[in-house]
């Protein structure tokens, strides 16, 4: 039997962006918070400092900051007729572990969703007709609008000291920003990043073609900055070690320096490390959760009772915890009923390699996670979809994130993968290459979902999560179309010798768990206003257990053409706002089912 601890007001599962933010906000609202983190303490100052952190083999190849698949992983298949097999090593996506979670090794590409993204079904039906969305796409509204989330997007941009150029302010558009973005209550707190030659040439070509380039919004600070919690950030050094690495310069916003340092001494805050949550426990009537059971590093099972449970694990593991705890109704693809694990979606990635002549020296190692120039002309519904045969879109970005030489070896089309010709091509092109990324949306379908695997188990004896996913036809067409636009821009860039385009979702190729694509897994615990198609209501509160609040990209009904951290943090602050100002004083379901 698990040892029973004294009750706390709130137990928070996971110490990443959403978990530490929940602790900060709820502790200041007078609630005693216990954060359970399965990994270890670590800190930017001690653990992410250069030059030791700048070890491509250890962190980018061997994933030293990420989960160890020996303890927790999932099984994967492309469709239900296959046997799912374990993801034995990391590849396509890189969930984190330890203080700060995956928030320490992100790139810092910080976006807001478009207003129309959040009302996707209504928007498309209004603009293109009620029959426009095919039956095999589970497109849904989020249940929350841009105007409701705007103050929270703004606040999170300030927490991160975000660098950028506003496009739409309350009093009208701004030159040099994203003309398609929703109206902003404030500009970015810091000026945009300095642009290297590749992104500059991309911007010039895009502009000539009539598109609207702007600097990518970056949680990489460009000036000394103090955030609203009191955390100090320093200017980015463009060192080229962002994604997959922690930032020892205090320049990339992360949950440790931006949130944890500012709450760690609060009397209502406690964090326990090596605390592996095994399940959420339910009351006898099943209407609420009573707390969570976790395993200590000494191997002891402990029950932590709590009035409120916040699920702040990485999206995939929130789904797993619900399934092994019996929270909510598991999705069944045969009957298309149930919600937990439904609407799993990903990101549809395509790109264009651009090879310059020797006049252009790109110095790719001068990089930063969110350094680049973007156009949003083909994202969301910023372009006419009437005759295109798909929904959604993506941004096209020329980024310069790094020149780390194990993974950065661009070679022109037709170059062999090894041997003398390969070696010469790597040598000749390393300093003369730019990459355009198409960062595309991902629609949910009835056949892409998460459930429990019947065969394999994790290190704690629980069934592994099972992922069934392939690219929907809709997204294959979308990526192909937007990639064509990217290729057109590439061909119009100056000093270009050759270009080559590739689409992860190309016709005839199946989604693969092996090559890295993005750590943007979404859905499975989606939000909404209908309990038959969502796990949580529009406030992030579980329909079935009103004292369980769920956070993260698992709430997205389908995935955006943007990186998820900005949108999911906007929703997190929205949820916390309703917890603090409504739920705590009167605990109950905040919406009628």
């Amino acid at each position, binding site marked *: 039997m698990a040892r029973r601890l004294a009750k706390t007001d709130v137990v928070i599962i996971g110490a990443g962006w959403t978990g530490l933010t929940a602790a900060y906000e709820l502790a200041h609202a007078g609630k005693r918070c216990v954060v359970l983190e399965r990994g270890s303490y670590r800190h930017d100052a001690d653990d992410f400092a250069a030059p030791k952190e700048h070890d491509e083999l250890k962190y980018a190849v061997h994933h030293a900051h990420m989960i160890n698949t020996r303890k927790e992983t999932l099984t994967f298949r492309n469709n239900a007729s296959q046997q799912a097999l374990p993801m034995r090593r990391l590849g396509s996506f890189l969930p984190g572990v330890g203080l700060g979670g995956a928030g320490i090794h992100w790139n810092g590409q910080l976006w807001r969703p478009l207003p129309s993204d959040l009302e996707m079904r209504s928007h498309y039906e209004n603009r293109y007709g009620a029959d426009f969305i095919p039956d095999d796409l589970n497109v849904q509204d989020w249940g929350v609008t841009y105007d409701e989330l705007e103050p929270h997007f703004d606040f999170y941009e300030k927490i991160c000291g975000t660098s950028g150029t506003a496009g739409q302010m309350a009093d009208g558009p701004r030159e040099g920003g994203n003309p398609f973005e929703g109206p902003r209550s404030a500009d970015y707190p810091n000026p945009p990043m300095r642009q290297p030659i590749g992104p500059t040439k991309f911007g010039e070509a895009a502009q000539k073609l009539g598109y609207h380039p702007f600097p990518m919004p970056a949680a990489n600070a460009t000036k000394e900055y103090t955030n609203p919690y009191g955390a100090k950030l320093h200017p980015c050094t463009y*060192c*080229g070690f962002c994604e997959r690495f922690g930032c020892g310069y205090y320049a990339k916003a992360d949950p440790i320096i931006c949130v944890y340092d500012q709450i760690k001494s609060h009397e209502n805050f406690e964090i326990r490390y090596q605390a592996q949550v095994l399940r959420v426990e339910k009351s006898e009537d099943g209407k609420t959760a009573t707390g969570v059971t976790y395993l200590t590093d000494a191997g002891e099972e402990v029950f932590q009772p709590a009035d409120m449970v916040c699920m702040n694990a990485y999206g995939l593991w929130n789904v797993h915890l619900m399934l092994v705890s019996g929270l909510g109704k598991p999705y069944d693809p045969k009957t298309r009923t149930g919600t937990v694990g439904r609407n799993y979606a990903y990101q549809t990635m395509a790109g264009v390699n651009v090879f310059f002549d020797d006049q252009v020296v790109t110095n790719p190692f001068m990089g930063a996670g969110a350094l680049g120039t973007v156009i949003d002309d083909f994202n969301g519904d910023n372009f006419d979809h009437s005759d295109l045969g798909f929904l959604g879109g993506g941004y096209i970005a020329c980024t310069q994130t790094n020149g780390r030489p194990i993974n950065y070896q661009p070679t022109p089309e037709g170059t062999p993968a090894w041997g003398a010709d390969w070696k010469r091509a790597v040598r000749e092109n390393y*300093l003369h290459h730019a990459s355009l990324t198409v960062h595309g949306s991902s629609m949910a379908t009835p056949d892409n979902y998460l459930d429990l695997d019947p065969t394999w*188990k994790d290190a704690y004896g629980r069934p592994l999560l099972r992922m069934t996913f392939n690219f929907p036809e809709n997204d294959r067409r979308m990526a192909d179309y937007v990639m064509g636009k990217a290729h057109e821009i590439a061909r119009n860039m100056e000093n270009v010798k050759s270009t080559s385009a590739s689409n992860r979702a190309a016709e005839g190729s199946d989604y693969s768990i092996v090559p890295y694509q993005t750590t943007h897994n979404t859905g499975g615990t989606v939000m909404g206003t209908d309990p038959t198609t969502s796990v949580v209501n529009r406030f992030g509160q579980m329909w079935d257990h009103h004292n369980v609040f769920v956070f993260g990209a698992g709430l997205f009904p389908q995935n955006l053409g943007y990186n998820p951290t900005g949108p999911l943090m906007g929703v997190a602050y929205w949820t916390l706002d309703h917890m603090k100002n409504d739920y705590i004083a009167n605990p109950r379901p905040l919406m009628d089912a």
Partner: protein
Amino acid sequence: MPTYSRRSVLFGFGAAVGLASLPRHAFAALDGTPFTFLTDSEARSLALLCDTLIPQDDFPSASQSGVVDFIDLQLAGGYGRGEHLYMDGPHPQGTPEQGYQSPLRPAELWREGLAAMQTVIGPLDGQPQSALDRLMTDLSEDRPALVGRVGAKTFFTELHALTNQGYFADPIYGGNKGYAGWHMVGFPGAFGYFTDTVDAHNRPYRQPPMGIGHQPGTSDFNWER
């Protein structure tokens, strides 16, 4: 440029001409230090395979820059033991999209894989380069039926990945000797402060590389050709 055979580099014969800076066994950069995991015979086979992937040109071959030493240390360490590899069975055959499904830990996989090469073309020593090139192409296309439990493509994927890592990883791991890989492409290493240069367009960056364990005065590139 002096000419010399691959054999002479590998076995230290005739290395006097223009190769004074090379250790006696080019593939054993830690000269005189026994390999940790590999046998001498395995190391020689591996050097031939790695040098087929990254041959010598104006810059060193894989084995000349310490890649065999790198792989030896990787196989003896966490990678070889599968410390980040979920190993629970069963191990049914998967699709390429499902990734590594071998029942073997990487150290076992390499040992069996290197032995299995001999079943395809016999001992690698003394094979003409054209035969090694053909072997590599076949492996990469999953063609030869290797004896034992190692699939050709699986072995190729690991061999290709680690050869590449050894050539370009920080020298603290035993490869990329004299920063050969970093010199070849122009990567300056682990110390990056580019705030004032990132938007100085088209200006070549000329600082020599520095790695994590950099010793002052050791960044000069001594490769002789």
